[in-house]
């Protein structure tokens, strides 16, 4: 798995283990409360300055000319007319000095350059301009004359692997050897099975479509570059830009205070980042390059689609005996990760000794894949959770019971190491109880044209442990207010709020008195990118350690004044007092050493994860749907997400994640898919929010419930939190498909569930029954 953008794999000597012994929290005062976001007012009032809001004096606007063909070779590019448009200050093409920058979206994928003369997907960058106004920049793009030799294109992984298919790269379209995994003896497993189910599934390519488009503002001061970039990780941007432009890390300052969503598509830089920097250098002016909505559909990432075949065997009593999985997908023109992690649910979620998986990927003429909210997992879940339901139907067993029959306390895919905690059983059981599963299942079937059904899906998430490195600094001021410094981005998930609550917990300071400096490589500490559901479990222990360091220093100073041992001192609401003799107390401002120093600075590091144990979140989601058998329309009536992500750090941000993940999963299940004109041009047909259908407020049930399964995990890290942001969208679509099956007796294996297809299936089903 490509982890560079999530974790650092190198040893990290500069982040030693936390100095303090940190006992797990027993009871918490602030952590876990439903506190509003610390930046809620700024976000809602429009006062928050997102990177796309940044406006600098003398700033120019950059724009990128994009290839209109799915596959083409540039024969010639004429820019004279564009250069003469009033206001145009710079034009960049692949013959401009300094643009021969290697571009390799994935380290093990095919290499390219910034402006590649062969465009392998629609939307590939061809040239760029900077002009005084955005309109002049667009006019200049229109004035460029490009002579393309249009090449045949290939749009699906199946077609890409056909003999004689158009070649995306000179070496062909195959990504290489399929990735395989095997444990146990699969054939023996099937022989031992009483029932076997085998199904083929199809999942669409999906788009991240964050609210804020991708882009940045670049400004040079001498040989130092500052970038305001809409990113999930300022330090990723720093590393990648410095490498591409051959600059010292210290000369690249990246600021990303707010981000209007990323969902994985902003873990790495885009060509726009380098183009902005080059244009700014060439014009000696700040340059803003923000993509149009349409560009964000074409060329900044997608979630791979493909086909999957899953065969499963079970004993009469429901015990799984074998799983055999095969997938074919594509990461687009440049990423080899077409089916990356498609198989993880199959490998790790349910107890099964005999498992075989195989993933093949092919290059196609489409934009490159980027991690999208739980890479690979929702796809695999679509297959696994439906096959489990099909097995349950064959066994005449409640699908919930079948899942409960196949639980495991160890991570089988990691060589049977135990999980630090797993609340999967509780997610299933307590979720079912809160949802009213048994009653809903027992309901007699309606005989009218509008029928209802319920479905369940479970999941785990490969990451979500978090881990080093991370450094946080807490500064305690003379008046008892606090400044927290950390590098992590808050990608809209409430990171700042959660971290302020951790500081408040340890230092007894109200959240309103905490100021946060974050996501700035110039002024804040190193953090990995916010992604992989790892931000809370990575950063919160470092922040806690920093707060504790600060607290210990304060207590030690107070101990001298009070002439008692620091061990018996407590800090609360700006006062230090003895736990033995509460009369012995001192306002923080009166501690003599502190009065001399004016501030106390605490530094915290993220310690390592437990060895030989896996830290993973789990979940079960339940839903009820209504199917109109006349029109094939499916309405989701209600949803419940029961999640074990360890400690609930902030109840409001927690519930937000659950609802948001379900909404995204409803899109996957019912409405979203990227459509390419496969038969002819290979161009994208639905490149905007009108034609690419994400669910609207009216498509989402008002009745959504978040049920935290708060299993105490004393081993995972010092705050007990596991990741949440991705599991919330893994089993959603599969649960919908299972509910549709429950309602109609028809299994829809192709996502999204399309009314036309559903009607065909219903008709075939009725015929079979007649």
């Amino acid at each position, binding site marked *: 798995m490509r982890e560079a953008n999530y974790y650092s794999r190198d040893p990290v000597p500069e982040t030693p283990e936390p100095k303090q012994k940190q006992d797990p929290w027993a009871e918490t005062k602030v952590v876990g409360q439903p506190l509003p976001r610390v930046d809620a007012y700024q976000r809602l009032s429009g006062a928050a300055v997102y990177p796309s809001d940044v406006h600098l004096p003398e700033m120019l606007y950059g724009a990128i000319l994009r290839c209109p063909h799915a596959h083409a070779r540039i024969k010639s590019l004429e820019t004279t007319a564009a250069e003469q448009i009033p206001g145009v200050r710079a034009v960049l093409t692949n013959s401009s000095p300094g643009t021969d920058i290697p571009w390799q979206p994935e380290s093990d994928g095919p290499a390219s350059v910034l402006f590649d003369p062969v465009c392998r997907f629609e939307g590939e960058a061809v040239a760029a301009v900077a002009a005084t106004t955005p309109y002049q920049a667009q006019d200049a793009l229109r004035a460029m004359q490009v002579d393309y030799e249009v090449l045949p294109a290939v749009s699906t992984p199946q077609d890409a692997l056909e003999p004689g298919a158009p070649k995306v790269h000179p070496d062909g379209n195959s990504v290489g050897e399929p990735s395989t995994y095997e444990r146990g003896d699969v054939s023996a497993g099937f022989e031992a099975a009483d029932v076997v189910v085998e199904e083929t599934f199809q999942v669409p390519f999906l788009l991240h479509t964050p609210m804020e488009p991708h882009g940045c503002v670049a400004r040079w001061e001498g040989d130092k570059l500052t970038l305001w970039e809409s990113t999930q990780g300022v330090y990723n941007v720093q590393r990648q830009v410095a490498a591409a432009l051959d600059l010292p890390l210290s000369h690249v300052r990246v600021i990303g205070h707010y981000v209007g969503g990323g969902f994985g598509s902003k873990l790495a830089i885009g060509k726009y980042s380098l183009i902005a920097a080059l244009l700014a250098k060439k014009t000696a002016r700040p340059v803003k390059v923000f993509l149009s909505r349409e560009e964000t559909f074409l060329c900044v990432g997608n979630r791979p689609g493909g086909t999957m075949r899953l065969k499963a065997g079970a004993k009469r009593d429901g015990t799984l005996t074998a799983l055999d999985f095969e997938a074919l997908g594509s990461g687009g023109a440049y990423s080899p990760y077409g089916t990356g992690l498609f198989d993880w649910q199959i490998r790790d979620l349910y107890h099964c000794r005999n498992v075989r998986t195989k993933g093949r990927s092919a290059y196609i003429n489409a934009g490159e894949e980027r991690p999208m909210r739980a890479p690979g997992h929702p796809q695999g879940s679509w297959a696994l959770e439906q096959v489990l339901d099909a097995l349950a139907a064959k066994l005449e067993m409640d699908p919930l019971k079948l899942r409960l029959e196949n639980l495991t306390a160890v991570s089988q895919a990691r060589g049977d190491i135990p999980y630090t905690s797993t609340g999967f059983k509780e997610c299933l059981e307590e979720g079912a109880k809160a949802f009213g599963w048994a009653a809903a299942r027992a309901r007699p079937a309606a005989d009218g044209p509008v029928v209802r059904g319920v479905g369940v899906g479970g999941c785990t998430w490969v990451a979500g442990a978090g881990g080093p490195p991370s450094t946080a600094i807490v500064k305690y001021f003379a008046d008892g207010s606090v400044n927290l410094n950390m590098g992590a981005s808050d990608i809209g998930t409430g990171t700042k709020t959660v971290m302020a609550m951790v500081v408040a917990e340890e230092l007894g300071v109200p959240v309103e008195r905490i100021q946060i400096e974050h996501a700035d490589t110039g002024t804040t500490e190193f953090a990995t990118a916010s992604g992989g559901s790892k931000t809370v479990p990575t950063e919160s222990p470092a922040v806690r350690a920093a707060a504790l360091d600060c607290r210990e220093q304060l207590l030690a100073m107070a101990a001298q004044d009070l002439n008692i041992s620091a061990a018996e001192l407590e800090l609360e609401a700006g006062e230090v007092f003895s736990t033995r003799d509460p009369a012995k107390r001192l306002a923080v401002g009166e501690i003599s050493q502190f009065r001399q120093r004016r501030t106390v600075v605490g530094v915290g590091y993220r310690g390592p994860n437990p060895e030989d144990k896996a830290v993973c979140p789990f979940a079960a989601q339940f839903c009820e749907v209504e199917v109109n058998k006349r029109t094939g*329309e499916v309405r989701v009536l209600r949803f419940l997400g029961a999640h074990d992500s360890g400690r609930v750090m902030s109840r409001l941000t927690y519930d937000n994640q659950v609802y948001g993940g379900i909404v995204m999963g409803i899109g996957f299940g019912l409405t979203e898919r990227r459509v390419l004109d496969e038969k002819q041009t290979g161009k994208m047909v639905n490149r905007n929010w009108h034609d690419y259908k994400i669910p609207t407020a*009216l498509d989402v049930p008002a009745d959504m419930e978040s049920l935290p399964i708060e299993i105490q995990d004393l081993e995972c890290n010092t705050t007990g939190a596991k990741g949440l942001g991705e599991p919330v969208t893994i089993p959603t679509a599969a649960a919908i498909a299972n509910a549709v099956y429950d309602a109609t007796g028809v299994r829809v294996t192709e996502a999204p569930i399309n009314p036309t297809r559903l009607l065909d299936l219903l008709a075939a089903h009725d015929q079979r029954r007649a």
Partner: protein
Amino acid sequence: MKAFAPRSLDEAMVRLTEDPDLRLLAGCTDLMVGEPEDRLGLPGVLDLRGLSELRRIEWHDDALEIGAVTPFSQIRDSPEVQKSFPALAEAASKIGGWQIQNRASLGGNMANASPAGDSLPVLLVLEAQVVLVGPEGTRTVPYREFHLGYRQTALGPGEIIGWVRLPKPPENAMQFFRKVGAREAQAISKVVVALLADVSDGRVSEYRLAAGSVAEVPLRLTEVEKAMVGRAAKAEIANLAGHLAAQAVRPIDDVRSTAEYRRFALEQVVRRMTLQLVRRVPE
């Protein structure tokens, strides 16, 4: 580019007489989302939104007049519309989403003349009259004769849609509206259906059916209407209505739907509406 925002209909007419090529604009929800090339060449625009004559809902004689620039949110919320023309109120509440309804106008929907315009089948079954205002004065055409072809209307040069007149519907008649789209809001219809119908003395006495997204223009399905009027109001006729409706249309395959699905969904929706009619249960 020239841009005018006249304050009165007279002033608008003067401008248009001087410059008949001015592009009219109302809510801009069609104009501004089309191909940029179509806008770049415009000689100028005339903004109709300041004309109070064109922004009103009021009774005149026995007809409710709705000004062409009246946004759908106002139509949706109007007690008069809700009471006498529930199908139109319903259609207005299903166009785009709230943001679109706050801008999009009835006149814009008509002038845009898309086969999928959601208000259009309703205008057909309500037998709306369209009042066109031109340099020579006003003229009134039945809405049926207004929408001539794919994106083609009976608007003459220098003419604007002033308002529509909706004759008071027959007492007790039922109205139905149903839109089938890819999601609950912000979706162009796969099929859209309107029905105004009545039953008296156990027989279908009135049956006006129209559908959109099933041909190059929204259609009144007269074959179905003829077959229904006079029939005994029994559940069996619902199947016939649906069947005939499916035969009367000529849908196409496109990104939003297959022709087959459109035909099938139309059949089911018409069947359902007719069933509700004979059972006298409003949707």
